[in-house]
């Protein structure tokens, strides 16, 4: 990995390590780490303290130690419990649909030889749309008086205010997320497919295996680790973002789309119950750390790169 002993080494490299301070790698790491530390550790310290306090904002920020009150509330509040369940449903539906559709699109693209790059470029576009605009565009398209999709639904005999009733609103925010992030899975799966060795495909084709058998026993197993990366990457981001819901339904109607981060924003910046919000936030952080752990484990197993 690193360089072997240079002929005319820089002064620090001749010195025994750790006696003359940092090596070259360490010196390059320093500025980034020095900036990242306060940006990462300071908020972490704050959120831990906040979760154990009552936070007063008026007349200067003040923390009153509150013991585990906030934590007891997190685990006994039925609203938060429901928000976690909704988050789980939202997570399973969005990530599940994205994985399914993403792999299907990738398999289709893989079979196309001419125009594959153009089709892929077009399919990728939603990823670059700011989530706010995904949400606003969703509102525009489903507006019950002039929305394009509402108009199509009306002609199919479905007359409803999509974002106005609980079931359809939930489905709509799920589909908006699916619209934006399926391309990511398509792209990753296609990269995996492109590395399926031609020899395996030929051998299987010569054996006269049927298409489904090939898919099941040859193609999918050989891209399984890439798909796992896709799943973990998508999971981490699914826990992070909530902009789409914030600008479309704001958690409504009747809390139908109030997933955990939306609930947190409401508790924090509408009710200004910052201590309680901090406890909710720490729990979310814990979930994302578990997923990140799995991601790093996977990388460690796959290669010596890191």
């Amino acid at each position: 990995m690193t360089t072997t002993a240079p002929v005319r080494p820089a002064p620090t490299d001749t010195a025994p390590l750790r006696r003359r301070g940092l090596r070259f790698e360490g010196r390059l790491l320093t500025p980034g780490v020095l900036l990242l530390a306060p940006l990462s550790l300071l908020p972490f310290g704050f959120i831990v303290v906040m979760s154990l306090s009552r936070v007063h904002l008026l007349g200067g920020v003040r923390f009153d130690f509150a013991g585990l009150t906030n934590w007891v509330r997190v685990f006994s509040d039925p609203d938060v419990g429901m928000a976690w369940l909704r988050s789980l449903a939202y997570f399973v539906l969005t990530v599940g649909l994205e994985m399914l559709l993403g792999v299907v699109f990738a398999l289709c693209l893989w079979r196309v030889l001419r125009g594959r790059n153009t089709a892929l470029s077009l399919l990728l576009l939603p990823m670059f749309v700011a989530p706010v605009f995904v949400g606003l565009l969703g509102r525009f398209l489903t507006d019950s008086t002039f929305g394009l999709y509402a108009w199509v639904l009306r002609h199919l005999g479905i007359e409803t205010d999509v974002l106005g009733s609980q079931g359809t609103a939930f489905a709509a925010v799920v589909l908006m997320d699916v619209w934006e992030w399926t391309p990511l899975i398509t792209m990753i799966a296609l990269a995996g497919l492109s590395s399926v060795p031609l020899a395996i495909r030929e051998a299987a084709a010569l054996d006269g295996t049927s298409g489904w058998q090939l898919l099941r026993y040859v193609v999918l197993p050989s891209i399984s680790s890439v798909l796992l990366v896709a799943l973990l990457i998508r999971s981490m981001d699914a826990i992070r973002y909530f902009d789409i819901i914030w600008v479309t339904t704001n958690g409504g109607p009747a809390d139908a789309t109030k997933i955990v981060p939306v609930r947190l924003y409401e508790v924090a910046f509408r009710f200004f119950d910052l201590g309680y919000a901090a406890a909710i936030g720490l729990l979310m952080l814990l979930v994302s750390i578990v997923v990140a752990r799995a991601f790093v484990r996977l990388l460690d197993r796959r290669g010596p790169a890191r």
Partner: protein
Amino acid sequence: MTATRPPTTFGPGPAGRRPTALEAANPLDRGTLRTRLANRLVLAVGLAWTLVPLLWMLLSSFKSKTEVTAPTPSLWFTPTLDNYVGLFSGANNLTPYLVHSVLAAGLSAVLATALGALAGYGLAHTRMRGKKHLSFWIISTRMAPIAAVVLPLFLIFRGLGLIDSIAGLVLAYLTFDLPFAIWLMSAFFADLPPALEESALVEGATRWQAYWHVVLPLTRSGLVTTFVLCLVFAWNDYAFALVFSGPSSQTLPMAASQLVTQTGIDWGQLCAIGVFVVVPMMLAGLAVRRWLVTGLTLGAVTGE
């Protein structure tokens, strides 16, 4: 799924030929008409599902106020540039928002890429103890839920007077752009063959010279990819701007959400802003498409 055609030659053939050996060897494509049609159909549906909303936004941005909210969607109308003209004149002048967005997203992306290019090399090649913990700390900072970061930063920024300032937004964006840049650049550096750098050192270059004149130019595409993705993340942010920005720092996504009022929404104008905000990021993103898989999987998957 009938007769198997054993492949004899390889490589995609010239346009208009019968299915080539490569296609025949492709397990999902035996060239039967039915499967090929099904394949095309799924792709067509996928493309329509993807592109209709975007095209509709583009189309609506050229419609007049009455046409945008017409109960029957129309494809034929007299296009008008009013919505775009309205972006830079009158009550909804977008210029300050644009300046804020460019400054906040641009500065955070430049800083993240620069520091990431240094620290990424360090992370990729260091052999210090605790390297694993360091890299795990970096990735978990990147992956922390935005809501859990905004909350404590809100109090910290209040204390430091950073609410409603570009500096505050830049710092807020660095909380996700910087760990992303460090991690991704380290993946790009780790992929480089060490031979070139070694030969530079053998020629007598210092570590810094080898890094600056040999290693860094070799990862030019990595640098550009990192910069573009950092820019896109920050440019598209809404959750941080919602809490941290005020009249003197509001960004373009905030401008869009402010057009949504109780009295009604000017959808034509909103679509115009949408086109204006979205198109540059699409172009930037597609410009680095070759490295996009590597970038968005944080180096876990390499493409093409």
